[in-house]
């Protein structure tokens, strides 16, 4: 199996940005990006991805969403059979935003807050996305409010440019070394990708 390339499966553009940074760090090129748009789609296709990974590596990145689900439990539930070696299945604890915030220095300056406002280990937050939105709402730069926050009464949970603006931050400023120091779940994910990459068959 060619370990320099993979199919990438993600739920949204922000996770995509994050996954690109991780893969790049490990020198793997995603040749195809499968965007599931919402929790349901990736889950529905997870068993097929596991089969695909017998022939071509697949990196799937999803959110844990609730502390009640444990990551190994999610994987078992989605796959209902053993995970193939070519399938890198990672679950961000609790949401991808924890990993985004884990580069505390860059994120604090991006939002315009003091670094102490961001937990030292963002993995412990129960609702990281909500945490980010509240941070922006209460203390963030003014010019981030319109793109990142949903307007009052909106049925959307995020602002109109949330994915694009946050994604841009990840591409441009987010540093994987600094971030992996703060988020154990991110560190484990990087380790898993590196292990896959270095294995020989």
């Amino acid at each position, binding site marked *: 199996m060619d370990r320099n390339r993979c199919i990438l499966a993600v739920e949204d553009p922000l996770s995509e940005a994050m996954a690109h940074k991780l893969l790049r760090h490990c020198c793997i090129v995603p*040749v195809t990006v499968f965007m599931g748009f919402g929790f349901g789609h990736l889950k529905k296709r997870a068993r097929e991805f596991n089969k695909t990974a017998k022939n071509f590596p697949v990196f799937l990145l999803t959110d844990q969403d609730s502390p009640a689900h444990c990551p190994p439990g999610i994987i078992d539930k989605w796959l209902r059979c053993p995970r193939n070696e070519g399938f890198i299945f990672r679950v961000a604890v609790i949401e991808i935003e924890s990993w985004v915030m884990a580069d505390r220095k860059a994120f604090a300056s991006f939002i315009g807050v003091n670094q102490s406002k961001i937990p030292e280990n963002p993995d412990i937050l129960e609702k990281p996305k909500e945490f980010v939105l509240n941070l922006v709402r209460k203390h963030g730069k003014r010019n981030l409010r319109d793109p990142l926050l949903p307007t009052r009464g909106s049925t959307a949970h995020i602002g109109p440019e949330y994915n694009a603006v946050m994604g841009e931050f990840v591409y441009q400023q987010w540093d994987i070394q600094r971030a992996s120091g703060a988020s154990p779940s991110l560190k484990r994910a990087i380790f898993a990708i590196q292990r896959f990459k270095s294995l020989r068959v």
Partner: protein
Amino acid sequence: MIISRIQLKNWRNFRSVDVPLQRRQFLIGPNASGKSNFLDVFRFLRDIASTEGGGLQKSVKDRGGVSKIRSLAARQKPEISIEIHLADAPGEPPGWRYGIGIEQETRGYRRTLLTYEQVWRGNEQLLNRPDDKDEKDSVRLTQTFLEQINANHNFREIADFFQSVTYLHLVPQLLRFADSIQGRILENDPFGQGFLERIAKTPEKTRRTRLKRIEEALKTVVPLSKQLEFVRDESTGRAHLQTLYTHWRPKAGWQREDQFSDGTLRLIGVLWALLEGKDLLLLEEPELSLNSGITSQLAPLINKMQRTQGRQVLISTHSDALLDESGIDGREVLMLTPNKEGTHVETVSDIEDIKALLDTGFTVGEAALPRTKPSDINRLSTVVG
């Protein structure tokens, strides 16, 4: 008969193409990757073969000359060449092969000249130009034998085949406002301005059966539509389509095509085209204006319509809904990938990662379309360097 394989050199944004074609063939790729240019090859052959004022010189001129057609990616000024294999079914040995190469005269009139023209029936070569006469009289190279009735009697069959290629990219506004725009209708009416006249020219019995079938299809997709009819306006003599909807007062009467929705018009156009001929049909983005639920029925519908006539259909598309259909074979989809050396064309089932996805139950929409989308893969490399 279908086109079972095509080879191109230096045609617009393609420098080199060699792909097999199926009976139903989808073309996917980013914007400006060359899907329409690919379809134009077949229209070009039709224009050359056309007995109604076609020919090589005109077909090239209508496209802005050799310099517009020749690939900008080509380094020197090599010939443009097209080779077509015709077979009874996909994958079968070709019954016919036709090939031409063209270039521009470097001096004088700067006419378009053939560099070669070849025809094979099975393994027998019927034509190999330039021949002795061409060498003596180079003016002969300004015309193909394909376009000359006197010269193509040996291979009239393929001249007829090329001539009956149809292309449709119906633009509802052009049809709806045909009278007020008074636009010039392009040859072969690619945009459907003269669509109503085309319907009008069809023998009545055939017209009735076709409209009946379209009416059935419309009833299932356009809410409340009940009846579709062809009429001629008594005072103006113009051809019209009209529909009756169920909820209106009976007196409210019929609505004519200028009141139809964009989607209704497009769907009628696509269905009519599918029913119309028996030779190669080129469809540009049939999904336009259609609700995704209807779009998702197009692929099986095309297959169904093909069954009776066995005709070949080439379809350009950007639509997830159209391709998210388990019944589409990976060999039925060509992916166009632009790069500096010209657009690359390949069958999606030949691409390793896509094949792995298709083999494990993903649809071509899921497996192949993501590659055609502007992706962060490219952006990342520009941003991070």
